[in-house]
């Protein structure tokens, strides 16, 4: 990745490596301090380990106007986005990251319009519940590819990322540890349990951590709800809409509520946080993504509440439009972060357990970047 963002993150990592004061905040620093020199793959892994909790920015004695101009959260966020672009598949799609906001809006407009058109043009002759408005076959013919294509794209991307950053295949224990860490959001605890710095400069708080957990578990519950619906449909021949005490609803309603609360809260925090500590030019795209999650969950809940009324005729394509746009943009939006994060966490865990640095390319020899690669400023 002969990329400016890598060079800048390397410059800052070298300063951190001589300092180490932030070692206790998160897993980025122990991983960093175990290295003496940083290959591009090392930097990409470190970047994807960073949760942008900002602890290390507010604690750093070398932030601007100091000439070292440290801003590690931003430097790593920029590398993160650069790595998602680098590994994006198909490669042309990398450009989407740069215009994530526009991309999401466009995907939304097209998805919603398309589903309304489908609903109007191929209105089923017969059908119960939702299928009175759109046939099951049509839904499937849209959503199966819309679900699988992004997964394939992500899988290819992750494989590329993994190959550049690790010499060995993923291990079960690494993945298990990554899942545990993500579930607890332990890297947002600040190391002391008081949480991260985000919405109010250097004040520690667990609010972002908890909202993220709401969103994460809400999302997983919604996803489980959809899966259970599919299972009911095919395995048991029970069709949507499902009653309030059915599995899809028991999972989906709390999931929708959690996702709603989590995404709205995260969007609010984002308006409070300093945009200069996040990735360059990504604020709008990230905001669009969080709001899209909110729209998915809210429209889902409203659709549930409106079951049996005529509003379903427009609520259904609207909700499905949100979901479709979400699926389509997943590999090229902020959603990608979750997958890369898991991969980086799994590698980090494996390195810690096995002591094998997993290095792919021999890391640049100390001093090989010569003296003119001075760390004294940009």
């Amino acid at each position, binding site marked *: 990745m002969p990329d400016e963002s890598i060079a800048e993150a390397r410059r800052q990592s070298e300063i951190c490596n*001589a300092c180490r004061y932030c070692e206790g905040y998160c897993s980025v620093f122990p991983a960093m301090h175990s290295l003496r020199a940083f290959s591009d793959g090392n930097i990409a892994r470190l970047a994807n380990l960073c949760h942008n909790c900002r602890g290390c920015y507010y604690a750093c004695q070398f932030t601007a106007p100091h000439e070292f101009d440290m801003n590690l959260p931003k430097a790593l966020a920029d590398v993160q986005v650069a790595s998602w672009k680098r590994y994006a598949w198909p490669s042309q799609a990398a450009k989407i990251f740069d215009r994530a906001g526009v991309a999401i809006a466009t995907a939304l407009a097209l998805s919603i319009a398309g589903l309304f058109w489908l609903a109007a043009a191929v209105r089923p002759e017969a059908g119960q519940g939702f299928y009175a408005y759109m046939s099951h076959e049509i839904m499937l013919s849209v959503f199966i590819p819309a679900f699988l294509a992004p997964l394939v794209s992500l899988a290819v991307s992750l494989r590329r990322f993994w190959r550049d950053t690790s010499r060995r295949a993923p291990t079960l224990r690494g993945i298990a540890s990554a899942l545990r860490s993500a579930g607890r959001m332990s890297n947002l605890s600040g190391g002391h349990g008081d949480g991260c710095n985000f919405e109010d400069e250097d004040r520690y708080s667990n609010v972002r951590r908890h909202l993220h957990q709401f969103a994460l578990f809400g999302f997983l519950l919604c996803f489980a709800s959809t899966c259970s619906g599919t299972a009911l449909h095919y395995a048991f021949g029970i069709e949507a809409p499902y009653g309030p005490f059915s599995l899809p609803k028991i999972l989906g309603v709390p999931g929708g509520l959690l996702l709603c609360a989590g995404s709205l809260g995260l969007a609010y925090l984002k308006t409070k946080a300093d945009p200069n500590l996040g990735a360059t030019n990504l604020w709008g795209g990230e905001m669009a993504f969080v709001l899209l999650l909110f729209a998915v969950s809210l429209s889902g809940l409203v659709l549930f509440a409106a079951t049996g009324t005529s509003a379903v005729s427009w609520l259904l394509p609207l909700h499905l439009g949100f979901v479709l746009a979400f699926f389509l943009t997943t590999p090229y939006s902020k959603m990608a972060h979750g997958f890369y994060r898991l991969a980086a966490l799994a590698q980090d865990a494996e390195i810690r357990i096995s002591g094998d640095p997993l290095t792919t390319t021999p890391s640049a020899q100390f001093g090989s970047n010569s003296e003119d690669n001075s760390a004294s400023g940009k």
Partner: protein
Amino acid sequence: MEPSKIPDKIDVLVVGGGNAALCAAISAREKGAEVLVLEAAPKSFRGGNSRHTRNFRCMHSGPLGALTDSYGETEYLEDLLKVTEGRTDRELAEIAIRSSESCYGWMRERGVRFQPALSGTLSLSRTNAFFLGGGKALLNAYYRKAASAGVRISYGSPVSHLELKGDRIVGADATIDGETARIAPRAVVAASGGFQADLEWLAKAWGPAARNFLIRGTRYNRGAVLRDLLDQGVESVGDPTQCHAVAIDGRAPKFDGGIVTRLDCVPFSVVVNKLGRRFYDEGEDLWPKRYAIWGRLVASQPDQIAYSIFDSSGVDLFMPSLYPPTRAESIEELAGKLGLPAAILASTVSEFNASCRPGAFNPTELDGLATEGLSPPKTNWARPISRPPFYGYALRPGVTFTYLGLRVDRGARARTSRGPVENLWAAGEIMAGSILGKGYLAGFGMTIGTVFGRIAGREAAEHAG
């Protein structure tokens, strides 16, 4: 803060915005005083040298938070007596040591978070409690605590004069938001650090060589208040000509390079001056024990510069440096890149190599691998410098702090020859010379500032109240 927003009634004026100042301000406020903090630096550079710290030395009778095992009063005092060679005020030293244990909880309650010793400093895990995120994180917590408790804080507000009349400070002159202001506090805590950032003052004490020194900490500790008080007859303590200096990367910025400019390569190298000649035993003792003398050694070489030269067998033996070392395929090429006389450097290195003897090399302890017939000798870790690539760092003296300060009593109150100044207290670096008359004990600066900052704040509030 605009001068117009300065309240009329100020019980305690705290001069400075580092650890000692904030401990004093919070303590005074907790006693109910109206407190104003005037910090010379802008907000982005608030916190003086304290922002560069990482730990404080803490007595404890058993495992305490992040601290392992125990560290008793006797051992602590012995450590202090060893480094100061007895130049310490025994009474104040004992107060600092005994009170350090209660500081741990006090600091935690006010938002400071601790962590186990940093990698590479495990030798300190028993004696020193490390701040999670370092000194700036500690200061952030204190500034938050102070602000929420109602302490008023004004940045970019240097104090130039504390007017002493008889045995009282009757007024303070400061520049606040570009305007001069006169303040009449009931009590004053001077916590404005040493004078090491005033190179002219250093040059007066040290000679012109001092202009080549690098200042490891803040550029705002210029000793204005110290000078002002000494000029008015407030009593001093500590050697006015001495400063604590270590050898740091010669490419470091003039001010505020902080901890990252540290170099730990000396024991695995030969160190030459700009003439290409060695001048001291690089392997005298383990590096943490010799770290501090090298500032002075380099300071006494021509142009206050020296060069640490080593080869590929040494490059991974010490903590990574801020800037990569200069690298070359031969000693002559390295000399060229560093601006050293090539022929002399080559002969210095080959003479050194010829005096090395076979034996077991062990970088983590005194291995006794010494040169033979070389002057000055290298008494440990002496291995030939022969495996390319070769590396070099330029070293310069980096000043940590100065020793000259105000004499205080056990209540942290300053005095003149006529007796105590009724309403003037001093805390931190500005009075540390009483306790640290010589040398340095890692983590003791923050202990002194915390202990005497708390005492000064409390006493000042009581006096004002």
